[in-house]
């Protein structure tokens, strides 16, 4: 074989080998770049997700802070737990409950507390509600814990005998009555800031208030307790109001709270 031809064939082979290696190198670097980019993209995605979660964490803390008035969550739970136990103790003393009934009530009180904890824990999941809505909801749950619609109240109703339940209703009624009377007295006191009353007139006002207390039952809105004072004077006829108020005072009452008296 011609030596020059052989050299030429070697050169071509080498050139092709180099070309193939070059292509392989380029391809591998391209794959590496793609992998690197993918990793970077993944990292960016995680960072993005973390950035998304950061305001959420702040929101959760903010809701807790507002609902708990800046107090430590654990301290709030401890206080509520003590309140639950105290309430159960009250029932045990009032109705001479046995150990089994007591345990049921304690479990129910604990259930109410757990319900609150779950609501607190799920603040972050509730993305559709605004911060203010979440605070309002939590404050409401806090206010109503162990109250009429609670698990504790429901279990108590189940374990009491009819006689015990009657006594329980009586205790609740007395407590409500005291509460309403106090609200009415405070209302009359506030009314005196615009409408002066003599001691005698005040006594008359109180007398009518006590007589009308059942009438007002259910009408004292928790959110607007000042409305209580609007209710009872206007359930009296003008001739009844005239027995203890003068014309100027009656005119002010009508002018301030509306109403139509004959």
């Amino acid at each position: 074989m011609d030596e020059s031809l052989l050299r030429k064939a070697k050169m071509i082979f080498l050139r092709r080998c180099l070309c193939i290696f070059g292509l392989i190198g380029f391809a591998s670097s391209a794959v590496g770049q793609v992998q690197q980019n993918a990793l970077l993209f993944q990292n960016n995605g995680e960072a993005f997700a973390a950035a998304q979660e950061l305001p959420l964490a702040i929101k959760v803390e903010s809701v807790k802070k507002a609902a708990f008035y800046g107090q430590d969550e654990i301290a709030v739970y401890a206080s509520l737990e003590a309140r639950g136990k105290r309430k159960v103790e009250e029932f045990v003393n009032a109705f001479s409950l046995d150990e089994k009934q007591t345990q049921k009530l304690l479990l129910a009180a604990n259930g109410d507390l757990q319900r609150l904890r779950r609501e607190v824990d799920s603040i972050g999941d509730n993305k559709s509600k605004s911060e203010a809505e979440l605070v309002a909801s939590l404050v409401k749950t806090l206010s109503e814990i162990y109250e009429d619609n609670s698990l504790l109240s429901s279990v108590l109703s189940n374990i009491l005998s009819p006689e015990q339940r009657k006594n329980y209703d009586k205790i609740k009624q007395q407590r409500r009555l005291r509460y309403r009377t106090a609200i009415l007295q405070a209302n009359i006191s506030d009314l005196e800031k615009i409408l002066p009353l003599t001691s005698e007139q005040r006594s008359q006002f109180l007398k009518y208030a006590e007589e009308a207390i059942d009438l007002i039952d259910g009408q004292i809105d928790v959110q607007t307790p000042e409305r209580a004072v609007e209710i009872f004077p206007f359930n009296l006829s003008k001739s009844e109001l005239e027995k203890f108020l003068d014309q100027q005072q009656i005119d002010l009452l009508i002018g301030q709270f509306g109403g139509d008296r004959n």
Partner: protein
Amino acid sequence: MVMCCRIKNRRSVLRLLASGVLLLNFQCLGAAQFEDQPMELRVDRAPVKVQDSQMKYYRNYATVEKALVRRVCKLTAEQEQSLETIDDRWLETIHKENLNEPKPLGAGLPQQLGRRAVMLRPRSVYAMLEFVANEIEEQIKTFLDADQSKAFQDELAARAEFRRQANAAVFVAIIDQHVYLRDEQRERLQKLIAENPEIEKQAWKMFVSNRNWFPAISNLESVLDPAQIAALPVWNKVSFPAIQFDLQSVNERNHKTIER
């Protein structure tokens, strides 16, 4: 002069302090030698102009108090005329003349020199409201004879007592909802709270509308059991002075007071 001094070393600092003390001494000694009146350190920061809402508050308060005295006492024509002198001009004068509250200085060089030193500090808006309200009542009493004055004072005292007891009853009812008081506890608590001057000034409606808020009441442990104390919502101790709401309410469109 002080600002111009450059503090180079510790000796300079001491010299500076010594000169300051000397300067203060000379001023006080000078006052002690030449003045018989109480020394006054005046801090005038309070606004001179009476704010509209403040003026409305004073006017309403005066109207209600005048209406009360008319219902308690049978006034002569002369006394009626005197009552009319409690007008906007009088209220504004009382306000302007009493913007600052004299407070005796508790310690310091003036006291060591045997001087009666007072510092005039500006009253807060709410302190002004209370002060002028008190002045209105005092002014009304000056127009009355001894019997009338006593009757008026008795009515004021009865009204204050009723307010105290009513507010206390609301707070007892709130506490009762939290810790289930016994009858004897309820009575003792009513007494304890009614004696607290701060509770009387609280806006009870705020505490009724949110059961998680709680007024700061001292000495509760003297009435409640430890278990009850633990059950109280201690995390929400807040204060809502009623006078703030009273001041806001005078600006409400439908706010009215008795006319006469």
